[in-house]
């Protein structure tokens, strides 16, 4: 049956060429996201083990990673990676501005900007109405309002968690000009903001972009960078129409990723998903049953 299907697809592709996919994310974006996944999961696992050190699983993690010393090293290395991602992304924005948008104004306040705007407000309102059965499904552009929130949650998170993390990493340096008790406050902010980030990413973000029933079990767009045209038409109607209107759709289409790549990506994503899920369950357990 499956071989029949493959034969069918091959015949179809050789004949019609309509299996090309829309390229939503550049290679750089994909790599950054993959790095982000690695970095974030490393930070989350090692950091949560410290935050919930009184829970049995925290000790298990520390042991599994080769002792707490190793966990600390992993945490700091992942943090460095995260800072790297942050700065590469900032550089990428600069390149985007320079090569594509021409000015910061166009980049930040154009149609494809990540900056939330009035349209997002209207779309959010319309979405709630749709959720409640009081209206049709709204049409979205390149970035929905929840994607924009995700983006800024990470942006904000990196800044807050990163800066407090640095004071905790280099306490002697920072207490040259900050009071010692600031380290206590930094600890609270660092760890609770991290809890927020971990909780958000492993539940809301996972759901919003990967686990939604219509995409279950997984939306691999962010890893492959490719999106089926049908999906583009269905989920990003405004963007699709814009592309059609501008006549630039064709130049944004590409052949699907080779099967082996897709499989590797799925494996990677599954691992990340599993780690995230287990961690979130562990955190929930620790907070509900053994919270101090």
């Amino acid at each position, binding site marked *: 049956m499956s071989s029949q299907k493959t034969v069918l697809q091959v015949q179809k592709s050789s004949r019609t060429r309509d299996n090309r996919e829309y390229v939503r994310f550049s290679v750089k974006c994909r790599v950054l996201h993959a790095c982000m996944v690695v970095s974030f999961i490393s930070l989350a696992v090692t950091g949560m083990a410290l935050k919930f050190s009184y829970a049995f699983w925290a000790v298990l993690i520390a042991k599994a990673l080769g*002792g707490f010393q190793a966990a600390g090293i992993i945490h700091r290395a992942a943090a460095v990676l995260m800072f790297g991602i942050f700065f590469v992304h900032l550089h990428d924005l600069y390149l985007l501005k320079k090569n594509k948008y021409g000015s910061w104004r166009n980049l930040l306040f154009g149609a494809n900007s990540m900056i939330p705007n009035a349209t997002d407000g209207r779309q959010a309102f319309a979405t709630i109405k749709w959720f409640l059965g009081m209206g049709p499904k709204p049409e979205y552009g390149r970035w929905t309002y929840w994607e924009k929130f995700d983006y800024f949650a990470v942006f904000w998170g990196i800044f807050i968690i990163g800066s407090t993390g640095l004071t905790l990493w280099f306490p002697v340096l920072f207490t040259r000009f900050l009071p010692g008790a600031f380290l206590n406050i930094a600890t609270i902010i660092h760890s609770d903001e991290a809890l927020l980030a971990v909780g958000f990413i492993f539940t809301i973000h996972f759901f919003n972009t990967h686990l939604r029933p219509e995409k279950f079990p997984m939306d691999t767009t962010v890893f492959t960078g490719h999106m089926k045209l049908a999906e583009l038409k269905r989920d990003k109607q405004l963007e699709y129409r814009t592309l059609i209107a501008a006549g630039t759709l064709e130049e944004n289409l590409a052949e699907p990723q080779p099967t082996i790549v897709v499989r590797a990506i799925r494996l990677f994503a599954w691992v990340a998903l599993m780690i995230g899920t287990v961690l979130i369950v562990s955190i929930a357990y620790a907070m509900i049953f053994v919270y101090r």
Partner: protein
Amino acid sequence: MVSFYLRLRYLWPRMMLCLALVLCDVVFMSPHSRVLAAGPGPENSDCLACHCDKQLTAKQGGKVVSRYIEEKRFKASIHGSLSCTSCHADLEGKELPHDAPLKKVNCGICHSEEQALHAKSLHGRALARGDSLAPRCSSCHGEHDIVAVKSKNSPVAPLVVPLLCGKCHREGSPVQKNGKITEHNILENYSESIHGEALLKKGLVVAANCASCHTAHSVLPPSDPASSIARGNIAATCSKCHSEIEQVHRKTINGKLWEKEAHVLPACVDCHQPHKVRKVYYEQGMADADCMRCHENEKLKSHDRRSMYVRADDVATSRHSRVACSQCHSDVNASRVRPCEAITQKVDCSKCHDAVGQQFLRSKHGESFAANKPDPNAPSCKECHGSHKVLGKHDPASPSYPTNVPTLCARCHREGEKAALRYSGTQHQITSQYSESIHGKGLLESGLTVTATCTNCHTAHGVLPASDAQSSVNSKNLSSTCGQCHRGIEMQFTNSVHSATVTKTDKQLPVCSDCHTAHGIVRADGDSFRLKIMGRCGRCHEDVAKSYFETYHGKVSQLGNSKTAQCYDCHGAHDILNVNDPNSHLSRQNVVKTCQKCHAGAGRRFAGYLTHATHHDPKKYPYLFVAFWGMTALLVGTFTVFGAHTILWIPRAFQMRREIREEEAREAEAEKNKERDHE
């Protein structure tokens, strides 16, 4: 036989003095004397009529002896008030002057007790067999001039006794030459002895003279069991003056004689030669060989079937190799055929090891051993030290050698053994914990014999339960017990806030074992100790331990990182002081230095880090409280909004899923139709 001439010579003055003496008699004599004198027979004056003549002599045994009696001395003598006939009873009714020599006076008429003793004595028996050298009463006490024994003029007064006895027992005298007396130079030796010197040179009349040891009348050879200087009695004789000497002797003998004469039970005189230099030892006594005649038989059994075999080798190689059997089995009676049949008591080691014995009886072991209902499991000396093969604690083969002590104690105190079973305290797996401990490893693995074994902490003989205030491991005494080795630590601890001398409180203060445990003590710089200390401090300092766990140090520790600061890294271990004390590690002056131990370059602001901060206390830590609740609000807010967003989305998402499936199905149908059309 008295000559006629003599008769005349005595008759004459008698007639001359007769009247005067009668008068004297009436005027001066006591009524008692008068009664005595009133009997028939010659008056004293009648006797003296002749005997006051200095020339009066008589032939006795072929020798001419003076029969002069100095009236003045007779009157002054203790017998001065007696009539001559009281002693010379055979004068009664005789005409004077009497011709035949009078019989020997029998002092026993009055002094029957002394007479009886003398008769049985060496002197008396010699006299009875007619030994011309044998002394009679008068030989020592004199005849008519006897003064009270207590008088300093008496020939038997203490000061002159040596001279009196020396008359016969002088070197070269016939007695010394012909008698069977083994002692030589008695007088010379005596005069140089401590007794002789005291008596003769210093005039200390209570110093022992001949009669003090040999008695006055009952002089017997040492071989006679009844003799005051017989082996069995000599101790009693000496202790007449040296009343505590037997005890002293056992303690202070230093084993000198026992080394020389290993198998003989010594008597005073074996060391303290009777006169000065003793050359011949007493022959009577119990020799080990006598015991071994039976006990070397391997099959020898007691009536209750216990083996009575004694390996000669065991004794010979033991610490007691120079101690005679009879010194320990002291009930033996050498005069019996089987000397050991007199034994009724078990060996009492405390006869020699007195102080240890006393300590043992006060110990838990001793208490159960000596109780009215003795505990059959209670150990006595031999349970630990062995019986015949007692080896000192310095002998590696000895059960009491340091490396063997844990095994020795474990025989009863190992889990499941008799002592562990009756024990109801909190210490368990004692022996296995000990062998895993720093002390146990040092001792058993490295063979470090100065390492603490059971006995170093519990003492060897004074073992008491920790609850006993006298116990070496009682909480009051524990720091000094550990301080025997860890002196420096003890000194620090004594000045610390945990010491009862510093902190006056009703609460229980910690002692060494509260942090280090009792038997499972591990290295304090090892992970297992470092990671457990918070829990131990936290038993009392509950709040600060809890808040410690909210900080980085505590959390990291919980994950098993021992490198991070534990309680004592900041507060000090044994020298913990109040943080307000300038000498405290955490005082204003010292705190930065303390942080710098780990955080090189830390400054004063760094030390402002709140090591025990909690965000649950708004009064003490308002900023932390606000930061925590601010962050919590952010979390709750975010999750509420997006949680709701997601939950509301789910039904729509399922709806979309259905629609997409349907659409895909339609498309597939269309595709199929197209294919079919194409064909």
